[in-house]
């Protein structure tokens, strides 16, 4: 049995975000982090490893420097890393990305008692689409928004969050689960594991490694295989500057209340 975790390296949008003049993101000037929800997915897999002794593989698609992120996850206790990386894969939208990652999972080899974990969504695109689309391509059942997972043999009982409550869902392995922050508290790297992380294997899956998979052809990967196109991208304009009131005392409060009343806001 294996737990396979799909992770993404993302720009840290909570810090300084720089936009180029042409409206694209200036990625070079931004720090990269492991996508926050993906850390909950990694933690879920590591919990399973503690319970069952299973192997934990981490998979990412991205440029070669993403290997550094995989090493960091090995230092948290994962066993093996896979970096899906090729120029042919660039420009992929969520459809094409899921096609490629699904081919990567086929290459790693999915067995009957395996579980694939993903984060709910990545903070750069916020689409939450790649997890379910990988599941569809691999004909796996999916449970999204997982806040609790109990495993009994090959049956999982998952608490799936809704806006107004939750559902309890039963699903058999192999399956794909997307994880939210309520699921667990991700652990830190341990000193021993940091020393060991460079001894653990990281395998690169390039175009040649995946090209024989039926999911991979020119009409399904990269820019030409993406059903969606970006028509234009832009930055929202700054709203006109409002009024800063003088002071912060009772007179200020009265002035504001007076203006709100004059404009019939209250």
């Amino acid at each position: 049995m294996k737990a396979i975790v799909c992770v993404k390296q993302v720009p840290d949008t909570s810090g300084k975000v720089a936009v180029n003049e042409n409206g694209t993101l200036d990625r070079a000037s931004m720090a990269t982090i492991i996508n926050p929800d993906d850390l909950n997915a990694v933690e879920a897999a590591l919990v399973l490893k503690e319970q069952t002794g299973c192997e934990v593989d981490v998979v990412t698609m991205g440029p070669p420097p993403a290997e550094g992120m995989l090493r960091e996850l090995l230092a948290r206790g994962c066993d093996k890393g896979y970096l899906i990386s090729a120029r042919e894969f660039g420009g992929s939208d969520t459809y094409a990305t899921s096609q490629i990652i699904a081919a990567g999972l086929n290459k790693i080899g999915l067995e009957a008692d395996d579980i694939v974990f993903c984060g709910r969504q990545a903070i750069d695109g916020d689409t939450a689409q790649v997890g379910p689309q990988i599941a569809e391509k691999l004909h796996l059942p999916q449970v999204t928004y997982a806040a609790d997972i109990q495993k009994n043999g090959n049956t999982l009982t998952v608490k799936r969050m809704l806006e107004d409550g939750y559902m309890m869902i039963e699903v058999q392995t192999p399956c794909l689960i997307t994880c939210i922050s309520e699921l667990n508290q991700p652990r830190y790297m341990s000193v021993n594991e940091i020393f060991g992380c460079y001894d653990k294997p990281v395998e690169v899956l390039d175009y040649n490694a995946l090209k024989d998979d039926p999911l991979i052809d020119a009409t399904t990967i990269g820019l030409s295989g993406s059903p969606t196109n970006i028509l234009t991208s832009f930055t929202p304009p700054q709203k006109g500057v409002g009024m800063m009131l003088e002071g912060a005392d009772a007179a200020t409060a009265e002035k504001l209340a007076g203006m709100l009343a004059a404009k019939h806001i209250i």
Partner: protein
Amino acid sequence: MATFNNTILEDFHDVWVFCEQRQGKLMPTDFELISEGRKLADELGVKLYGILLGDNVEGIAKELGGYGADGVIVCESPLLKEYTTDAYTDVICQVVEQRKPEAFLIGATNIGRDLGPRCAARLHTGLCADCTHLDVDMGIYKNFLKESSTLPEARIEATNTALVLGKPHDVSRDLKMTRPAFGGHLMASIICPRFRPTMATVRPGVMKKAEFNQAKADACEIIKPEFELKAETLKTKVLSVEKAAKKLVDLIGADVIVSIGRGASSDVEKAMAMAQELADALGGGVVGSSRALVDAGFMTADRQVGQTGKTVHPKIYVALGISGAIQHVAGMQDSECIIAVNKNESAPIFDVADYGICGDLFKVTPMLIEAVNAEKAKK
């Protein structure tokens, strides 16, 4: 599948809206999306249909006509009573293949964002996630860009065509799906030029609900298509559906929202009580929160305003001790009147506020409550 070729674009017509029901009740998002779908169907000159799945749900379908649906496609089965990814994807894809809609909108709820990508992957088509603006008509789209972007005129005019597989493509009949990315720092308009249906999940609370029209509801056509669904093909089973024990805060429906942020962390309980009192003084409303207090466990997720929380546009939005990170601003900037109180005079929240007071929320809020009450007493 043999007869379904979704690259022959002219075979596809009509706009569809997935109408989500929970426990036999339509969701508020359904009415928002039907109202928006009506506009798009008119721009395309086609009909608008809702698609409603469930067990014994035909009785709730006609209400959708009152918001603009020409008809509702109703698929009923005991296996569709509760939402499951397997069953809903299976039935929806079958009906899409039979009837070939041109555009398909789904509310970006926790269920819609589970269903949408699965359907788009099976149908081999494009899906744009969590859209906040939709257009077909180029004139309307360009006006939207003029108002909502900093793009120069020439760039806006150049949106008539897109380069698709190296060739210029006329986008005039494509659905232009606009959404925030990178936490709201960037907006992007996405098209799906080569496949149909064009699919979008749409953020709840953003599209405006139309006026209900009883005559249109009465005239709404009910369509019951054939589909096949076998229990043994379903791989997930719903054991139970639990409603949240506590009544959740309805941020989206509130006219007044007073939100608290990191500046309240020294005494969140006190700040919450003050915020509620201010909301009541301003006409009655609810207390919202920035992500910081939710992540720290002080506030529940149903109160969170922002990119990963709710998008709100109340009549009055008060931000107490909220710095105004773009993720928060993305969820509240369209409020009619924004009042901000923050100790830091360079806090970005003041850039979007109509009225700003630089001060400590614990001192300023009680004075505001008193002043507002005094002003109201004069009337």
